[in-house]
């Protein structure tokens, strides 16, 4: 017994990721689990039949483009921050926030488009699920926009630069994640509706 326990890793430093960044990743895991549960529920329910067939709103293509573009701008802002180019950082952040809000408006119009084709929140679960996916994603995206605005304000207080990247990195991670989550949901809906 004793012999099997090798103490090879003696006096070793624990991994040194910033605890708050690590906590953010764990939070992302919980968000993944929520949407994994909902999308699996969608598949299970769909397999039981009595499923309303309808066209997805075309505006999803536009909002998907917007969310990808916003991630590009944010990445540009992130690189600028690393190079201490504060002007480009602010421009990139402002563009990301604007595009984020544009995405939310676009998602609202997707609901309008759904109502136009008589798909309501109350009714066949096929429609209800779509409202839940987009709504819950939008709720997370609003938190992302708020986070970005907080970081944007701190750029004006000169608190984001190449030596102080923690909040910026966290905001970038969260935003890319939310964009990726939307692309996943959209692909999922394209394949499974």
């Amino acid at each position, binding site marked *: 017994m004793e012999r099997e*326990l090798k103490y090879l890793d*003696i*006096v070793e430093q624990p991994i040194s990721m910033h605890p708050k960044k690590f906590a953010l990743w764990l939070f992302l895991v919980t968000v993944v689990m929520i949407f994994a*549960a909902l999308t699996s529920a969608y598949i299970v329910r769909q397999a039981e039949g009595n499923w309303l067939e309808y066209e997805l709103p075309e505006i999803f293509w536009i909002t998907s483009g917007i969310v990808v573009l916003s991630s590009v701008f944010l990445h540009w802002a992130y690189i600028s921050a690393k190079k201490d180019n504060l002007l480009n950082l602010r421009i990139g952040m402002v563009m990301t926030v604007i595009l984020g809000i544009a995405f939310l408006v676009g998602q609202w119009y997707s609901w309008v488009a759904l109502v136009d084709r008589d798909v309501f929140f109350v009714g*066949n679960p096929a429609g*209800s699920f779509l409202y839940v996916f987009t709504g819950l994603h939008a709720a997370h995206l609003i938190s992302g926009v708020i986070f970005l605005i907080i970081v944007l304000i701190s750029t004006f207080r000169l608190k984001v630069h190449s030596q102080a990247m923690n909040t910026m990195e966290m905001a970038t991670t969260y935003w890319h994640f939310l964009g990726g989550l939307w692309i996943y949901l959209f692909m999922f809906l394209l394949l499974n509706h």
Partner: protein
Amino acid sequence: MATASVAHHDAAVHDHHDHEHHDNFITKYIFTQDHKMIGKQFLITGIFWALIGGFLSILFRLQLGFPDMNLEFLRPLLGGWIDESGKLDPTFYLALVTMHGTIMVFFVLTAGLSGTFSNFLIPLQIGARDMASGFMNMLSYWFFFGSSVIMFISLFIKTGPAGGGWVVYPPLSALEQAIPGSGLGMTLWLVAMTLFIASSLLGGINYITTVINLRTKGMSFSRLPLTIWAFFLTAVIGLLSFPVLFAAALLLVFDRSFGTSFYLADIYVGGEALPNTGGSPVLFQHLFWFLGHPEVYIVLLPALGITSEVIATNSRKPIFGYKAMIISMLGITILSFIVWAHHMFVSGMNPFLGSIFMFLTLIIAVPSAVKVFNYLTTLWRGNLIFTPAMLFSIGLVSFFISGGLTGIFLGNSAIDIQLHDTYFVVAHFHLVMGSASFFGLVAGVYHWFPKMFGRMMDPRLGYIHFWLTFTGVYLVFFPMHYIGIAGFPRRYYSWTNFSFTEMYTDLNMFVSVAAIITFAAQFIFLFNFFYSMYRGRKASLNPWRSNTLEWTTPLHPGHGNWPGEIPTVYRWPYDYSKPGAPEDFIPQTVPLSQTPESNLPHEQELVKLEMEIMKEESEVLVANESKH
């Protein structure tokens, strides 16, 4: 720059111990960010809930054991829930079992167990000044507190608390007209559980981050006490499963309040069809049990971790199969996510799918048996010291065996379909999950009370508490196996309409009396707990002669835990009765180079490495000194 390598593991935690800011009453006891106080807050709230949850069970045991009893004497407390003839209201009976389950599973054995000991022990045992985020930790408690307040209020509303069982299956829980408990009571249940999920996730994220990022120097994963491994894996399970419960609850909220049809289809109430179409009630069961089954291990694993620590310390022996313990806990963690449908064998699922879930379920017996074997072999020929904590830990092992055996029966779909929703199931999970976890919780309180409050609990009262509770639990739950095999369904208000039940009236009466005595015995513990907090014997620094880091702190550790440097760890936590050593324990902070007489050959080789590292570090320290 040379400071970086030495000070870097301290840098992440705030390091204010030298100039400790003076807390006022509110920041010290109420809105505290100190993990030790937050742990105690969870413990006190958990004890409060345990009393309520236990008391509710006494109420429905009175109904089950003595169906003809006049309960008029309860009217001052229950008011209108006792009808004119002195009987318990049947819908309130359903609310009682629902709330008993909810309170015990979530508020006592999740928040009260994990919340208390993960918070209290993780920083102390891994050598950290506090949790990764003290603020999130505080939020975690206050979300739990808010959840508790709402759940508590729901006990007193006019239509009664939620009554659809702790599993809240729709359509019963989704339709207000189904039972009174599905009205406001159910709404409050859902709000409270949402807050509870937020609390668990905030706590869990913190536990995982702390264990991974904030271990002291030398505290590798292969030197973590098994308690920390258990809390860590518990937090991982919670992180992956609670969001799914949130998703299930969210859809249920939409069904209840917005009129959607996720879980509702083709329902007729009083001959009238409801507008809902296309929903699937089985969908809820899948989502619910995807949390519900891992939840069993969220409840059990911390108790098993505490037991490992207590049994090793009080057997004065290294834990048998340290790595096997970790691997079996990992196995349980993974398996817990792929067995959920064994709760749904009677839901009309494909029998082939059922046999897959049956197979996966039975595999869990393997890691569980490994753990039992390791507990027994640790006890085997140890210098046993029967502290109350040790007795409760052995009690846990006993329940884990007797309750686990019936799990093998119930895991087989063929026999489960027969026994489903009978008292056999009630007996099974009350032993293996309920009582075992409760014993782990109590063992933890007895064992770490000296660290929490700087005083000892009275051991004699502890022994009386143990023997009354241990025999009481078996007297309550063992007969339930027979009642279950005989065919008694659970959650029934009364069985007097079935003639086969007549010959079991005595047995039910017996169970109820045993339950009342067991519940009464808990007041011994309660007295001991609060009395010892103020009047108990002053504890010594390391009363159990234990190896782990928490016993190297001062008697009343401040916020920051260690005055001065955080100790470095040089060995695993289970060096008890090492051959050659002068004492029967060697704390983790003793370097191998100081114990040449007891080092094993491979450890002797590590001494050289250790000396080199220590030399390097002292050079760095000297360099730092000269820089100042």
